[in-house]
Structure formats: C-alpha cells, structure tokens
C-alpha cells in the first residue's frame, strides 16, 4: 500500500508551501481580473488592482465572494472560460434557493480527481479496493466527483448511486465492496435495511472503510457506525462551488487536510469578516488557486470550523479543518441561543438507549420558541414500564439542556417513524414564521 499520492507536495515544508500559494495567488488574481467581467467589476468596486496583491497577507484586500453571487450571475456569468473550453457542468439542487451552476475544464476535472486521489491514499484506499459509490450521480457533484477520484486512486469502482438499497447490499456482498462512499444518513439506512434482511455488515461483507460526508455528522455518530459495522469511517469535505468532494481526513481521523497547493484557506469572524486568531473557530473561506473555469476568490463557504496548521502525525504538512458540527446557515437560533443540529446529534449519540435517527422541531407558541427533539429508542432499551420511558425522556432532555442551555422537550417516537434518507438528511423542521 502506498502512503502518499505525491509525497513531494504532501510533505512540503510549510514555508515552501506558502511560497507556492503566494505565487499562485498572484497569478490567479491577474487571471480572474483579465477573464471575468464579474471579478474585474468586483475588484474595481473594492479599489484593488492585481498589482496590489504581492504577498499572501494581501489576500485580505480582496473582496469576499458569496453563494448569492453565483445565483445573481446564473447560469455562467462568473465563468472565466467560454463554453467550448468546458468539459462538464454540475448544477446544485437548489433546495435553499436558486440553483447554482458550476463548470469544469479538462484541467479542473484532473485537479479535482487528484485532490481526491491524494485524500483516498491518505486513508489507505487504492488499487486493492472495490469502492461502492452510493452518492447520487448526475447533476449532484458527489457521485461523479467521487467516481473520478476513486478511479484516479486506482480503486475498482461500483457506481451504484443512491437508492435501490436491497440491490446495493446484494452487490456489496457479491462484488466484495471494501469501501462505501455515501452520506452517513444513507449508510445508517443501509445498515438498518441489511439488518432487517438478516445481513450483518460486520460478518457478511468485506467493507472496511466508509467515506462519509455531504452533511454534517458528529464524532459520536462515527463511533456508533464504527462499532456497529466494524469499518473505519472517514469524513469527506467539499462543496459543489469548489468542485465537489475534494478532501478527507487521513488515517489519524483528526481533521480534514486541505491541499494548500490547490486551495488557500482562511478562517474569519462571520460578523466582522476579520481573520480569527490561530486555533479559534470561525467561518471557512476558500480561494481556489488552480481552477480555470470557475475560480473563486475568498469564497464564504459558511461552514464553521477551526484551522490547524500543526503538522499532522501522518506526516502531511497541509493544514486541517477541524470538525465543529455545523454550518453558519444550519445554525438555529432558539430563544436567542445558537443551536447546531450537530450538537444535538453529538449529545444523543452518547446515550446508548437512543437510536440513530432524530428530528428537531421548532415552533413558536405565544412569542416563545419551543424546541422539541424526537427520538427513536433502541429496541434493547425498551421497557414495558411507563416510568422507565418517561425517565429516558427526562434523561435525554437533561443531557441536551446541559449542552445547549435551553429546555428541550423530548418525544419518544416509534421505531422507523423518523425519515430515513438516501442523500442529505433533513434533521430540522422549523415551523416558526418570522
């Protein structure tokens, strides 16, 4: 098994890496100013010229880019190349507004695949693996993005896409899948479906690795998945605006490596836009250093994270973004208190009586926010004494309150009654009309 996809780049000393970034940043700024009327206008409005960007520190002179910019210039108003240079489009689902279109040149697809090939190598996935890809294929970047990355890394790919779960499980057994790539929600759904059919992931499949992402999930969920399936579960990161799935954790399972020769990462205070101090949490901002079709300058990703430049025990020098369970736009404000669904998940998964699925429901009654969390219990935890179940509701409510600092009504619901998802799971219903 190879340890590094490209040791020279992955282990490059940080000061050299930063020099590479600096050089690429200067080129990029010139490139977008010349090729994108959108960026030229943006830079002019901000009073910044390409020649003002000489060092990495100058990056803060550049204006931010937002998802809204992609929507305002729909479909291809921000692209830097004409259509005849593109090899592919992807389009977001548009669940939170107008869909966004992203495009790729041949080099963009190659850089994307390389990024993932490095990442997969870092979790020991490669030539000897059969990777079953249960991310949706098609307009969503997850399926095809993973597909190209896995092929580049040398895997044999089983492109099942999402859905048709019985067949997924059958093929997993018949073709000996060793790696499953899908959302954590879909993996839970598959585990449950397999269990109902008398199939154990642990005993009846060759699965050893899960590459799970496209939605926030907690460390506690990782423990549950690893314990119930015997696989190692790794977090993957990416967003369609940047390309799609791009980075994963390494075998240390302690933060996701961002390839600094391809992307420049900043963490800022979401309110002021100022960089936060090293090790502090803030909003992730990424500049694509090598993209041709749709480069993004200081793109506000919306994820809340902590940047870590410490050398990782895996030997890679590239910085890591640490898990903090939430995106700025997933955050709920309940009675003035910030709540991330990931925090709720992390509390629930520590309680053995509680099953894997939950739903947060927020209502406003007489000007007061009411937060309710519905849970299913593990069958083994079911007692036929009412008091035991009421105690369980109280115990979960107290655990949530101690972490979230707000009163939460906990409601036990029947097994199977909370929605299962084959893609990104919906975990919040906000009924407030504000």
């Amino acid at each position, binding site marked *: 098994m190879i340890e590094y996809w490209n040791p020279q780049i992955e282990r490059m000393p940080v000061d050299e890496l930063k020099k590479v970034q600096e050089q690429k940043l200067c080129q990029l700024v010139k490139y977008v100013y010349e090729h994108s009327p959108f960026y030229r206008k943006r830079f002019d409005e901000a009073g910044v010229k390409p020649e003002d960007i000489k060092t990495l520190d100058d990056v803060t002179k550049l204006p931010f880019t937002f998802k809204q910019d992609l929507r305002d210039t729909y479909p291809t108003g921000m692209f830097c190349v004409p259509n005849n240079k593109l090899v592919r489009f992807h389009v977001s689902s548009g669940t939170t507004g107008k869909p966004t279109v992203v495009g790729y040149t041949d080099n963009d697809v190659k850089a994307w695949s390389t990024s993932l090939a490095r990442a997969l190598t870092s979790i020991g996935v490669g030539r000897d693996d059969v990777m079953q890809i249960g991310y949706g294929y098609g307009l969503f970047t997850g399926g095809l993005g993973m597909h190209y990355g896995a092929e580049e890394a040398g895997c044999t790919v089983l492109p099942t896409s999402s859905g048709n779960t019985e067949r997924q499980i059958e093929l997993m057994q018949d073709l000996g899948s060793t790696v499953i790539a899908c959302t954590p929600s879909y993996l839970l759904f598959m585990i449950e479906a397999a269990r109902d059919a008398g199939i154990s992931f642990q005993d009846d499949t060759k699965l050893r690795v899960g590459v799970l992402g496209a939605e926030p999930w907690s460390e506690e969920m990782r423990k549950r998945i690893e314990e119930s399936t015997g696989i190692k579960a790794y977090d993957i990161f990416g967003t369609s605006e940047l390309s799609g799935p791009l980075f994963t954790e390494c075998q240390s399972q302690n933060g996701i490596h961002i390839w600094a020769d391809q992307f420049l990462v900043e963490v800022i205070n979401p309110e002021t836009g100022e960089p936060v101090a090293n090790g502090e949490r803030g909003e992730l901002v990424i500049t694509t250093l090598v993209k041709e079709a749709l480069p993004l300058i200081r793109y506000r990703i919306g994820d809340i994270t902590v940047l870590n430049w410490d050398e990782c025990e895996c030997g890679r020098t590239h910085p890591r973004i640490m898990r903090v369970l939430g995106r700025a736009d997933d955050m709920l404000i309940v009675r003035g208190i910030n709540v991330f669904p990931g925090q709720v998940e992390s509390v629930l998964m520590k309680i053995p009586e509680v099953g894997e699925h939950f739903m947060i429901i927020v209502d406003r009654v007489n000007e007061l926010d009411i937060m309710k969390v519905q849970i299913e219990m593990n069958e083994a935890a*079911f007692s036929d004494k009412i008091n035991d*179940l009421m105690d369980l509701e109280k115990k979960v409510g107290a655990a949530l309150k101690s972490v979230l600092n707000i009163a939460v009504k906990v409601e*036990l619901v*029947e097994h199977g009654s909370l929605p299962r998802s084959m893609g990104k799971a919906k975990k919040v219903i906000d009924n407030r009309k504000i």
Partner: protein
Amino acid sequence: MEEKMIKQISLFAENKPGRLANIAEKFKEAGINIRAFTIAEAGDFGIIRMVVDEPDMAHKVLHDAGFTVSETNVLGVEMEDIPGQLAMIADVLSEKNINIDYAYAFVTKTEKAFLIVRVNDIRGAVKALDGANVRLLDMSDVHNI
C-alpha cells in the same frame, strides 16, 4: 418455576390514530388471538400490553413489522369471581413486601377471574401465592381460556 409464569407481549406505540388498527391487522393476518389487553398511556406515547395465545409468534410478527416490542414474564393469577379475592391476593404479596408494577384483570367464560400482574420479584411472588394455595396460569391455560 418458569412454568408458573406467562409471557406478556409489550409494545411501544405513538399515541395517534391508526396505530392500534395496524397492530390488530398484523395479528389477524397471523391468526393470533388476544386473551387480555391493556393500553397504558403517557401523553405522546403508550405501551400496549397483551397476553396472547402464541406470544413468540406475536413477538416475531410485530418485530418484523418494525415495532419496538418486548416479551416480559408476568403472573396470571386465578381468582374466584367474588368480592374480596383481589384484596386477598394483594395481601399475600404485600406481606412479602412485593410491589405490583402494574396489573389488569379480566373475567372468563368459566366464571373465573384472572389477574395479570407484573411484580418487582416474580420468583418471590410465585412462592408466596403457591404458599397461599392460589392457582397461577401457565401458557397452556392461556391457550385454553
């Protein structure tokens, strides 16, 4: 001692329309006959407790249908259908400091009454009731009620 106990099926159900109909339908399909039945409710949810003629099959049918279900050992106490019987049984248990978690009762066509009872010390309860010459149901009785 196990033969003096009967298996009760308990299941978790949300308190909303259609739940009971769904469960009853499953039993109908499987040909399972309910002998005694009660619902304990606690707001959003309830626990349905049942004594049926085929408890293992009932457990499997409900479990396979996705319900959260358990089998618990309880006692079926035979009583004459006359005043004072329940008091006597309760006395026997309380003398041994045995607590009743819950109980429900029904009258049969043989003019006996049966008390289904879950206690905190089932072995102690069997001994105490045996000592007081109280007859306890076994699973074959449940079949033949």
